[in-house]
């Protein structure tokens, strides 16, 4: 299996889908020169400027035009640079893309993919660091994808492009350089299936996006202390793999949700609430969430770090959950 970076894997997925289907095209600012993180480097050379298209600084038109182009049978992949800038295009995504199929009674599909890089990246401050995946999970009509590995970034971007629903595709900026094995097979992944990062019977840790790696590291060190954590990477938040989460917590009796986003009204609340509702009697400890405090993200590193969920915090949370039950 070749090793690729998360960034290269995403690029490969797009290129493969563009080769496969001439109706797939990408549009966003600076794409002709590779995009802001280089995720599109070389693609304009292969596919030409009409299919790897530059755009004016017009997020609302990038998104809105994608809605129209998708209704007309093409498959636009739109690039928002930072998910924060997608806040300039919320009407287009939420009032238009998400609702068109339904409110027109099924006359149309809107197969668009919005790439919205999320997350904290050293010293990018309040307007370039947000993780608002919970918002989109709340909106009927939208699919929400939050890949954490190169393999998933390839497989899930392909699935997103082939999906007939509008997909909010959130890559994590801090993962661009992460390398990992990517299967030769070019099959798209399945939306809505969690990945078992690590099996274990003492506690279920549910996470997604970059926080998965924090959880995996924590699980390693917990294993050293004799606590076996099962780590699940949700990979998609809508649909989210309720069955896998419930099955795991039924075995372990303990749930910890770990998210980078603000904890209050974050998607972790949905998971914690769902588990508490469904498995109350099976829980050996109260459900728990870890996430960011309800503060904007700072520029200065020590302040910025205050919003991060660290390996130590995950370890500590699991220890207290397992201790409480002992």
């Amino acid at each position, binding site marked *: 299996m070749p090793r690729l970076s998360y960034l290269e894997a995403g690029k490969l997925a797009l290129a493969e889908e563009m080769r496969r289907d001439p109706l797939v095209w990408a549009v966003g600012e600076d794409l002709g020169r590779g995009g802001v993180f280089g995720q599109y480097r070389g693609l304009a050379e292969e596919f030409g400027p009409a299919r790897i298209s530059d755009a004016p600084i*017009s997020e609302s038109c990038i998104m809105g035009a994608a809605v129209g182009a998708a209704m007309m049978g093409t498959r636009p992949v739109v690039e928002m640079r930072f998910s924060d800038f997608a806040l300039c295009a919320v009407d287009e995504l939420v009032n238009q893309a998400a609702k068109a199929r339904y409110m027109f009674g099924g006359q149309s599909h809107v197969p668009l993919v919005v790439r919205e890089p999320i997350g904290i990246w050293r010293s990018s401050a309040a307007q370039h660091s947000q993780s608002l995946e919970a918002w989109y999970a709340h909106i009927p009509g939208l699919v929400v994808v939050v890949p954490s590995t190169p393999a998933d970034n390839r497989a899930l971007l392909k699935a997103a492009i082939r*999906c007939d629903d509008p997909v909010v595709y959130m890559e994590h900026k801090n993962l661009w350089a992460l390398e990992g094995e990517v299967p030769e097979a070019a099959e798209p992944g399945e939306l*809505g299936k969690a990945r078992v990062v690590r099996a274990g019977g003492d506690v279920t840790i549910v996470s997604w996006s970059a926080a998965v790696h924090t959880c995996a590291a924590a699980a390693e060190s917990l294993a050293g202390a004799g606590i076996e954590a099962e780590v699940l990477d949700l990979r998609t938040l809508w649909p989210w793999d309720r069955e896998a989460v419930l099955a795991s917590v039924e075995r372990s009796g303990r749930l910890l949700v770990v998210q980078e986003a603000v904890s209050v009204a974050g998607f972790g609340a949905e998971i914690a609430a769902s588990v508490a509702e469904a498995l109350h009697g099976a829980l050996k400890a109260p459900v728990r969430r870890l996430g960011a405090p309800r503060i904007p993200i700072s520029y200065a590193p020590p302040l910025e770090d205050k919003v991060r969920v660290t390996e130590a915090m995950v370890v500590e949370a699991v220890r207290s959950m397992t201790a409480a039950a002992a």
Partner: protein
Amino acid sequence: MPPADTPPVSNLDVERYRAGFRQMCRIRAFEEQAIAAAQEKLVLGAIHPSIGQEAVAVGVCGNLRKSDIILSTHRGHGHTMAKGAEALPMMRELFGRDGGYCQGKGGSMHIADFSVGMLGANGVVGANINIAAGAAHAIRLKGEDGVVVCFFGDGAINRGPFLEGLNWAGVFQLPILFVCEDNGFAATTRTSAMTSGAGPAARAEAIGIPASTVEGNDLQAVDEAARELVDLVRGGGPRFLVARTYRLTGHTSSDAAGYRPQAEVQERWLNDPIENCRKLLEAAGVPAAELAAIREAAEAEMRAAKDEAAATGWPAVELAYADVQDVGDPRTRAF
């Protein structure tokens, strides 16, 4: 305020304008029945009648192919019908009934008939502009020769998408005709009071889209202008048309429009596009009785549509969960 110069009637294409007259009468009658139905609480959501603006919809859409595309606004009945949608499924949609174009899920503000290239009314002012630009973008990408027409009101020119969508169309030289229906009002506000500068045409020109202005209550004038522009747009780049008109009713069917003087409205009724067209055809030799019959037939058609819509049942309740999305279970509500 009748159109300034009534053109020579001798070489008028009578067939064409008789058809246009009929279509305008149908739209007018549809709106009247819809208003009546709203008053009878048969139509429950807000409706925005296009009474007085029929010549714009008909004059523009008369120059489009079935495969051409239009996008409309909250005030979309006229555009929809002019593009070829049928009265009964439209009426059923307003009533929220089975067999409505959107299965009763959209109502007046989301009326659409994709089978005739009508890609939807929109509840968000100006939102259709970017969507229309994207539809035209798709036509260009696919190498097709279709045209997109995007209708919007004079109030929409103050929303961001007006700038972004026009610039997009200009940059990519897309086959799109923007039609601004300047009816003087945005809801209860005179648009002029909230608009800086010389208005829609000047703004379009500044964004590099050639613009022209037409008397929107004159079917012939709109038709001729639209024909020329649609020709330029097909396979070419974007154009902009301002149609000057007036909203003869309130903003919605429940708006008495007390914010404008009676005298103003009365004067504007003298420039009723249907009456203008009727006179034109009469002057061209079409018998008055024939024209009256067309109008009566239109009224009868729409009365029947209303009655039939009223007699139609509700959509199956399970449709509430259909067409949300392919992925995930939409029923998730409570555990």
